[in-house]
């Protein structure tokens, strides 16, 4: 019976409609499930670059608890992490190391630029050893202004990153 329904003329339309049904049944919920898993377990790399690391440490403390969002500083290797929080000023000496750390992380990976120094160089924009912002080194997802940003601002940044991940495709078409 199928052989009469599917003729060489309407096989394309049939495959197209089958693809739509499959996408609606499997791909969208599967993508939602994969993104849901990624959102609630963003593990940052244990790299402290400058003074904003104090407020990042305070955000991990009991009062501003980022662990409830799944952001635990996994103290293993960076090959298991997926978030780089650039905390503060990047000097010319630190920049190649930061790029090396970013390259060693597996996909998918996200970058949060924390502090005015990571966005544009901040207070040290005219120093001889400071990069004016990390846009030339890493692709940044969320910018967090402040000098240093309060821990509540950092938590808002994590939530913005979660929104961004939720609205993006679960698999990248390479």
């Amino acid at each position: 019976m199928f052989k009469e329904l599917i003729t060489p003329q309407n096989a394309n339309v049939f495959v197209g409609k089958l693809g739509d049904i499959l996408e609606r049944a499997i791909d969208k919920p599967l993508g939602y499930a994969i993104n849901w898993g990624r959102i609630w377990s963003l593990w940052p790399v244990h790299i402290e670059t400058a003074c904003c690391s104090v407020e990042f440490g305070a955000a991990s403390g009991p009062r501003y608890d980022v662990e409830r969002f799944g952001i635990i500083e996994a103290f293993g290797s960076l090959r298991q992490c997926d978030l780089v929080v650039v905390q503060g000023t990047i000097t010319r000496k630190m920049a190649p190391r930061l790029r090396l750390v970013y390259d060693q992380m597996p996909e998918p990976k996200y970058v949060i630029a924390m502090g005015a120094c990571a966005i544009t160089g901040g207070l040290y924009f005219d120093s001889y050893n400071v990069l004016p912002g990390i846009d030339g080194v890493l692709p940044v997802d969320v910018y967090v202004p402040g000098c240093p940003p309060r821990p509540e601002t950092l938590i808002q940044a994590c939530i913005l990153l979660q929104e961004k991940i939720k609205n993006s495709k679960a698999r990248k078409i390479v």
Partner: protein
Amino acid sequence: MSAKLPPGLALQKVDERIMTLNVGPQHPGSGHMRLIIQVDGDYIVGCDPDPGYVHRGEEKMAEYRNYITNIPHLERPVIHDSCNILYPYCLATEEIVGIEVPERAKYVRVIASELNRCVYTMYWLAIYGIFLGHSTMFMWPAGDRELLIDLLEKMTGARVTHAYFVPGGVRNDVPANFEDVCLRQVNYFEKRIKEYADIFYNNPILIHRTEKAGILSREDAIRLGTTGSVLRASGVDFDVRTKEPYDAYGELDVHTNVLKEGDSLARSKIPWMDMLESCNIIRQALEKMPKSGTVRTKLKPNPKGGDVSVYKRVESGRGSLGCYIVSKSRPEPYRVKLSVGSFRNLIAIPYLLKGEKLGNMPAVYWSLNYWPVEADR
């Protein structure tokens, strides 16, 4: 090796037994600096510290800004202890320009300085807990220091990087019922940190890890020029607050804590004992503070001094912090040098790590009270 090497690479002969490890800027046990360690089996035979990953050129930039606009810059090396790193700068600038600080400001400065010392030490203890794998010791100090940060926020308006000390006093007076709130918080804080003895200092695992690790003898501590808790844990009784009192410390009763063993356990106990002492100092200062008065002597715009050079020092959370200013009759200082406690203790890192086991490295390294951002300035 008959093939030619590609450009940019070189051959280096390595030893059969000795391996070079990079305990680098990205490491759960290193902070913002790199240690190039050479190991023979399990023992460290050589250590070469490589600071400078946060070198932002503070001293050069201080020459392009005048005495007042330098303040937000020079407090950034240690953001949570910012009052103490501005303290010698303000004292030196006051001597250069030639002004006096009002009485009430001296006591407010003492209170702010002691609160900052406690906030810094709590963060240091929290990171020490992580390095040793004791995550409760991270959570308890990180939570308890928020009480003091609330007090500082009432005083200055900011959690960290207060920019509160200016040459001539402090920026603004404390709010109306500050004394009662401060006394209550400090009493509660003191009760809390006495409980740390149970989880941390009397913990047999901690004692086993840090006792007799990295012993620094008294003669070596003096010869290496170490400062702060490293010095006092090796039996030298030196504290700038008692030996060369500044501001209101001359009228307060400060007791210096000294231990004799010189190992990592002693170096980790001294900052805790100093925090208990800070609570006493704050209580005394709140009692003796003059109840009214100005807290700031106004400066003329663009203050400048003559052709002098001044060196002042202060006791901060890491040790004695000195500031050397050379001024040449211009609104900008000619040269500002901060002689920070972390940079002076840097020489103890390779000295103590040689001969230690690799597993002892975090316990010894962080007990030297080394804050990498400050040492790089």
